[in-house]
């Protein structure tokens, strides 16, 4: 994995020292909260409902065991023994004291981590496919591109005060696991006539104005990536709206200017500045590429070529069930990709205790070449596990309460922190996720339902990605009471689609029965078990769901509540 060079190390240490001083000045009363707020936000420190919250970047979701142990230590020393992995592959600590932030950032710097640009109107943590480097359908490891962009965009003076935040996601695979169509910039690594380059998508996003990104460039040569993205950011910085923060994201600029005009502006700037970048990406990429070589497989691995996981499966039904959902084919036949679910039914999606973090770190070190990934779906991945060690990994996970066999299924729910923690939230989302997972797993419906993505946001900002959930749930405030809108048919993959609203929202009490109605409509209507929920929805549309959710006798009541 990428290791900090001297520049990175010094830069991060300096930032820690600067922020320590800013905190000290705030505590001494020299800085007012209004003066201090933008400074703390630039260092990932938010003030939430119950405490300060620190958001730590996990670049493109990649960690090693030492880093995971440092996160565990931070959770224990300065938080309440756990951390929350987010939909942007970051981790958030919910119970931080302002006085401790300097020490925490120092502890992060010790393991080459930081909280820089995890907030504010700048280029945020660049996210990537969580199966990067292991996926069978991958053209190239997207983390090389993501790391190049991290280095380029960190502390970039011109782009420190963009009109609004700017999110970039990269995938190197045909199947889009990185939700690239819903980012300010989505980068797809593609191959054209044998040459690897980039397809650039612009202006996607969720939030209050959900939009599927538009193709900006069909094929961009690799060497042009930095000058081209600089042109995009420059044009956005210049023309993006600053009069209204709800219209300040680049997606609005794309809509207002039109893609053709915007492309012409970007191309003009790109053409004028491209030469200044000559040679730079090659030199930077060379060093970065070396850091993302696949792990060296030990020679004894050669004998594991023929290892047959079916033998393990036959010995334990629990292991067999887990392998069915939580293993993915690896590009190397001797290995498998292991997804560790942080979605035990009834637990808080994305939360891991310090002890669980240490178990994962130990497993990564012992069995998985010291590589860990965090997914935007709030799970943890061991990307390279020799098949011969799968059963041992499962047993260790099981002992730590980490062996939920539910990846991609009903209880593998994305949920933002919601009103239990977040100062922006309008309703709770975690208890809804807990209730859905507990109720439907108790009914043993999960396996029968199969592939299903439920995503829950506690406000219109959509951190829980509800627009791209097969079933999306959005929590709103109706006169001080939580109310939940349901959307159906969303999809964050290469077949990107925005969910459509079923109709009027539901109270917290009526929501679970409504979800049950939706699931029953699917189970009774599907052609067979192979027709997934999403395929069923695409075939039949909203009408049967609407009929079931809003029968005529209830319709008047719902409408009066809306």
């Amino acid at each position, binding site marked *: 994995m990428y290791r900090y060079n001297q520049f990175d190390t010094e830069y991060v240490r300096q930032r820690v020292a600067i922020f320590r001083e800013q905190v000290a000045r705030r505590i001494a009363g020299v800085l007012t*909260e209004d003066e201090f707020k933008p400074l703390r936000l630039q260092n990932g420190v938010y*003030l939430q409902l119950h405490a300060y919250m620190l958001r730590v970047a996990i670049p493109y979701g990649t960690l090693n065991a030492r880093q995971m142990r440092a996160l565990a230590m931070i959770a224990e020393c300065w938080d309440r023994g756990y951390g929350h992995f987010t939909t942007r592959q970051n981790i958030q600590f919910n119970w931080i004291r302002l*006085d401790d932030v300097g020490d925490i950032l120092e502890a992060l710097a010790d393991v080459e981590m930081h909280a820089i640009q995890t907030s504010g109107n700048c280029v945020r943590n660049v996210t990537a496919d969580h199966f990067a480097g292991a996926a069978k359908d991958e053209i190239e490891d997207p983390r090389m591109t993501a790391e190049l962009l991290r280095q380029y965009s960190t502390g970039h003076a011109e782009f420190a005060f963009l009109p609004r935040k700017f999110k970039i996601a990269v995938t190197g695979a045909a199947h889009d696991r990185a939700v690239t169509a819903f980012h300010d910039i989505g980068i797809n690594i593609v191959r054209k006539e044998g040459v690897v380059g980039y397809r650039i998508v612009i202006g996607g996003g969720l939030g209050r104005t959900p939009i599927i990104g538009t193709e900006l460039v069909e094929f961009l040569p690799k060497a042009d990536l930095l000058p081209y993205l600089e042109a995009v950011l420059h044009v956005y910085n210049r023309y993006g709206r600053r009069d209204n923060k709800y219209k300040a994201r680049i997606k609005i600029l794309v809509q207002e200017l039109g893609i053709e005009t915007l492309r012409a502006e970007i191309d003009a700037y790109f053409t004028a500045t491209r030469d200044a970048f000559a040679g730079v990406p090659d030199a930077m990429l060379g060093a970065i590429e070396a850091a993302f070589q696949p792990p060296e497989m030990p020679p004894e691995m050669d004998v594991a070529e023929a290892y047959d996981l079916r033998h393990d499966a036959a010995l334990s039904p629990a292991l067999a069930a887990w392998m069915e959902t939580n293993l993915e084919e690896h590009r190397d036949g001797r290995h498998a990709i292991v997804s560790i679910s942080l979605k035990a039914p009834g637990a808080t999606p994305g939360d891991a205790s310090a002890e669980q973090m240490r178990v994962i770190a130990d497993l990564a070190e012992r069995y998985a070449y010291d590589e860990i990934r965090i997914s935007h779906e709030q799970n943890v991945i061991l990307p390279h596990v020799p098949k011969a060690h799968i059963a041992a990994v499962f047993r260790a996970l099981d002992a730590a309460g980490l062996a939920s066999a539910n990846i991609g299924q009903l209880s593998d729910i994305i949920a933002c922190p919601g009103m*239990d923690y977040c100062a922006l939230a309008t309703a709770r989302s*975690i208890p809804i996720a807990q209730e859905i997972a507990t109720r439907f797993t108790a009914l043993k419906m999960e396996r029968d339902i199969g592939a299903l993505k439920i995503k829950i946001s506690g406000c219109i900002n959509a951190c829980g990605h509800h627009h791209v959930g097969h079933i999306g749930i959005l929590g709103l405030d109706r006169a001080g009471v939580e109310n939940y809108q349901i959307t159906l048919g969303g999809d964050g993959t290469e077949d990107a689609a925005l969910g459509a609203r079923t109709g009027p929202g539901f109270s917290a009490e009526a929501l679970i029965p409504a979800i049950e109605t939706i699931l029953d409509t699917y189970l009774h209507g599907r052609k067979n078990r192979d027709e997934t929920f999403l395929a069923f929805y695409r075939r039949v549309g909203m009408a049967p769901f609407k009929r079931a959710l809003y029968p005529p006798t209830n319709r008047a009541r719902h409408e009066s509540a809306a």
Partner: protein
Amino acid sequence: MSAHPIQYVITANDFHSGAVVFWGGDAWLLRLRDACVFERAEDAEAMLTQFRPEQVVGAYVIEVVADAGQLQAQHIREAIRARGPSNYFHGKQAEEDHVSL
């Protein structure tokens, strides 16, 4: 909706810990039940200008009702702030009498 009359309380976050605090009349306190209750919103609003900025962050007025002698926040957001998150039993609800700021 409650039949009890709406009253007013001032809340904020402690500047060091971020903890939810309530104005108790002469100090910031951790428990809603210890809060100074205002009968009129304008009296509470007028009080907001009196606080020293280094003590707390973002002071504002919330609505409460006294139900059987217990102060309860009207809005669910404020009820969660007063009690702690609902996904775990921690925060104020778990720290009844030994909280330090």
